[in-house]
């Protein structure tokens, strides 16, 4: 076994994963390994796409970084702190719409602020501001079921932005959208990413999407052994860097 060169964990890094592994249903007969020995470094403001086939543990990795699940081994760090649970600094955006149907768009966008106990006026102002950033100001009093799929995902992005996250985790957020909407949403996401200066970790299994968005694409390889239970992925098998042309999406 080749020992990895030790790299100190810096408080500058947005996300650092060291040797993390995740076993689902640990200690039972149904136990299976989702991740094994994953190393990943994300610098602030970087746009990383995790690319790989379904079931290779991409989403699991996002859940671990978000702090929604605990790793079975290894360590996840974010800005010099060990990740021990969910935090508003690391927002997760899901594939299906996860807006609260009983709240208006504005209330959804400012949900995180209401959890913090901020006043109604402050919430309304914040909601208007983030909705303006995603181009949905006029929908502030609508209900989520009055919006199209693409608009709902934009509200979900707005809700995440309202928390001013340093890391945006996106779990196939555009998978349920049609091709045209998806292309529009990709441009929109790049704009949002550029002015929020947050790091983005974006999971997808579309190669074109990965190439269109990423500074760096992390590809996972899916190794299926003889037994189904030992199906595992080795992550990251390969990292491809995409130098971003300075004018590729800016100003049109």
């Amino acid at each position, binding site marked *: 076994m080749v020992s990895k060169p030790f790299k100190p964990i810096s408080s500058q890094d947005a996300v650092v994963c060291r040797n993390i592994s995740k076993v689902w249903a640990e200690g039972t007969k149904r136990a299976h390994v989702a991740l094994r020995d994953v190393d990943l470094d994300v610098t602030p403001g970087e746009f990383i796409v995790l690319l790989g086939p379904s079931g290779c543990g991409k989403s699991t990795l996002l859940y671990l970084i978000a702090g929604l699940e605990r790793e079975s081994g290894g360590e996840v760090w974010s800005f010099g702190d060990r990740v021990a649970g*969910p*935090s508003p600094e*690391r927002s*997760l955006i899901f594939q299906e719409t*996860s807006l*609260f*149907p*009983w709240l208006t768009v504005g209330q959804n966008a400012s*949900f995180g602020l209401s959890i913090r106990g901020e006043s109604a006026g402050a919430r309304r102002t914040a909601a208007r501001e983030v909705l303006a950033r995603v181009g949905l100001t006029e929908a502030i009093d609508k*209900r989520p079921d009055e919006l199209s799929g693409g608009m709902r995902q934009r509200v979900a992005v707005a809700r995440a932005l309202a928390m001013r996250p340093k890391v945006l985790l996106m779990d196939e957020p555009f998978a349920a959208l049609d091709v045209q909407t998806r292309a529009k949403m990709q441009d929109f996401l790049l704009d949002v990413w550029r002015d929020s200066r947050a790091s983005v970790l974006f999971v997808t299994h579309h190669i074109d999407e990965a190439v269109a968005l990423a500074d760096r694409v992390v590809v996972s390889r899916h190794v299926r052994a003889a037994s189904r239970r030992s199906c595992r992925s080795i992550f990251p098998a390969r990292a491809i860097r995409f130098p971003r042309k300075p004018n590729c999406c800016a100003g049109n």
Partner: protein
Amino acid sequence: MASVAIFVFGIGNAPAIFMVVVALFFHMVLATVGQIDGVNRNLINVARTMGASKWQIYTRVIVPAILPGLLMVLRLNMFGAWMVVLVAESTGVGYGLGQVIMLARNTFNPSLVFFTIALIGLLGFCSDWLMRLLQRKILYWVPETTGVLRGL
């Protein structure tokens, strides 16, 4: 069950209340637990990533999410409770519509039996209608059903 209830609580309202509780309590609890299990995990995870406490997750996410199902369970249980009350009345309470039916039966008065049955049906329908109004008031975000199902 009715005889046990009368044995323990005597004649009056107590055995009827006891029977309704026994008949519906566990059903309600299991239905509520089932509803909570069925809440979309993503909604809970969103609240968790925003730093919500357990209590906040309950009050802000789980309660509104299970409310539509819960009111439906409540409506179903209204039927159940209504029936159990009538059974209880016909045996133990000593008065009420159930007792009227029993009385009419024992005095060979079929028209009173059928009148009481109709009255029971009407009252049941009205209470369900009230529940429906309440449901529509509370669940303002649930879209109105369309076409054939309107009003259900």
